[in-house]
């Protein structure tokens, strides 16, 4: 009883972690299922069919490919624009700083339906047809604020004396930026880019408002499949995404741990 009381927080924490990870476990297990009907809801028998033939359902790999392309372009543009904004806010005083912060914050405080529908309204009014370009515009928009916030936090935590030291050692502002500031801010930029990519790759609601039948992203494919029947391949791709993320995040942690040990 005493043991239970002193470990109450740990037990609750692990239970919550289990709740958080249970669906991922189900996704992995059901990627090895061989369902009888079109829906992959009930465990029937073990099979690696979907793993050996991940593109076995029509359209699924095209959808993944489109999502990857959109994700990469949106991440690249949002990361560049967002990092520039973050440096402006983090390193300069300028007229309109408060309203700039508000403008950055508002898209994050806007529900996805509102953002998606407002963009659709604009595109309809301007006569722009839905498709890949409107999707890209929307993705860059909602990734931008998250990149700014992530990079800004990193810039704020930098020790300004490091840059002053570089200047004292006769580095010009450009050299200081490239050799000192940028490497120090890089982990923040990487985190922002990773966040942007995952937001873009995962978005359904905003994408759905701006997509055409020829621009089916992976989440849209999954949504369509949920109405018609869920191929096992969906779980295979979900599992691959989960494991890739796990490796990337764990790898990043490892690198930063090693760096921290070296510098201390």
């Amino acid at each position: 009883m005493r043991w239970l009381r002193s470990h109450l927080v740990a037990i609750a924490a692990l239970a919550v972690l289990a709740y958080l990870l249970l669906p991922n476990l189900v996704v992995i297990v059901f990627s090895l299922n061989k369902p009888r009907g079109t829906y992959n809801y009930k465990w029937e028998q073990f099979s690696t069919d979907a793993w050996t033939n991940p593109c076995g359902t029509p359209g699924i790999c095209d959808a993944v490919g489109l999502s990857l392309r959109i994700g990469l372009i949106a991440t690249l543009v949002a990361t560049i624009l967002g990092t520039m904004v973050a440096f402006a806010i983090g390193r300069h005083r300028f007229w309109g700083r408060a309203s700039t912060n508000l403008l950055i914050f508002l898209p994050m405080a806007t529900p996805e339906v509102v953002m998606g529908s407002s963009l659709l309204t604009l595109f309809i009014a301007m006569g722009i047809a839905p498709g890949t370009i409107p999707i890209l515009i929307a993705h860059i928009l909602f990734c931008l604020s998250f990149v700014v916030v992530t990079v800004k936090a990193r810039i704020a935590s930098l020790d300004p004396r490091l840059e002053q030291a570089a200047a004292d050692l006769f580095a010009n502002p450009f050299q200081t930026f490239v050799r000192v500031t940028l490497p120090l801010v890089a982990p923040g930029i990487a985190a922002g880019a990773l966040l942007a990519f995952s937001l873009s790759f995962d978005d359904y609601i905003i994408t759905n408002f701006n997509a055409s039948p020829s621009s089916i992203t992976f989440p849209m494919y999954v949504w369509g499949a949920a109405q018609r029947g869920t191929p096992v391949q969906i779980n295979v791709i979900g599992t691959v995404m989960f494991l890739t993320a796990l490796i990337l995040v764990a790898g990043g942690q490892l690198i930063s741990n090693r760096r921290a040990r070296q510098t201390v």
Partner: protein
Amino acid sequence: MAAPLAELEVTTAPPPPRARRSYTPYLLLLPGLAWLVVFFVVPMVALASQSLQTGDPESGYVQTWHFQTYLDALSQFWPQFVRSIVFAGAATFLTLLLAYPLAYFMAQKAGRWKNFLLVLVIAPFFTSFLIRTLAWQIILTDNGPVAGLARTTHFSDLLQWLQLTSNDSLMNSRFAVIAGLTYNFLPFMILPLYASLERLDHRLVEAAGDLYATPIKTFWRVTWPLSLPGVVGGTLLTFIPAAGDFINSRLLGNTQTVMIGQVIDSEFLRIQDYSTAAALSFMLMLVIVVIVAFYVRRAGTEELV
């Protein structure tokens, strides 16, 4: 970026973070802010304008300032509106309840396991949200182990008594939708809480203990107030997207659990009544802004991001 000291002294603005009179910040801001203005502010104005137009997609729309659209939309869809706020509120409360012990454990007790746990919290977030929600259909299925456990422990009776389910089945119910929302937004609560609890100086908790405070009193008088920035950030990051979400209500609910996001989606894309859809969308935004402003003022935290 490093401004020479001589330049620093010329400016009159207070020093933090660094002051320099130049065009650099404006040039840095220009592309990003232009994107936000053209594709966020302008669409919002377009949305407001669309809600006050009358017409149809074929013959075009005319700006008529027809405010009646708002009243009609509200009288038709107020149950979905109220339901969205209630479901999002319930899910936010539950995420706070669940996230707190995990965030506290990670920040204060996990020691060298801290980073490992952090990876486990972030990783599910990188797997498609839709696939994970579909997994809940499998978990809550009628003949599954979870449904069986709920029946033997009479948890399903409790849910029926609370009117969260209408029969023994857990799926396609209010319970499933709220559980799905709670699950989906949990990382958004855990991470801000973790960030503020990690900064908590454990010596303060020990000091409270030394002064004969009970653990409960220590929590309410020391830990909780110090974690408030995380609580405010986390609840906003959960409540706002949850109020507009329709994926959970669509995949885990029934016709009695339709949320406002689903209505906006179908009014826009299926029924193509753009004015009603725009009015609903604009009202959702206003309701959220009012709730958030009121809440932030009550919580007394102005610093959000």
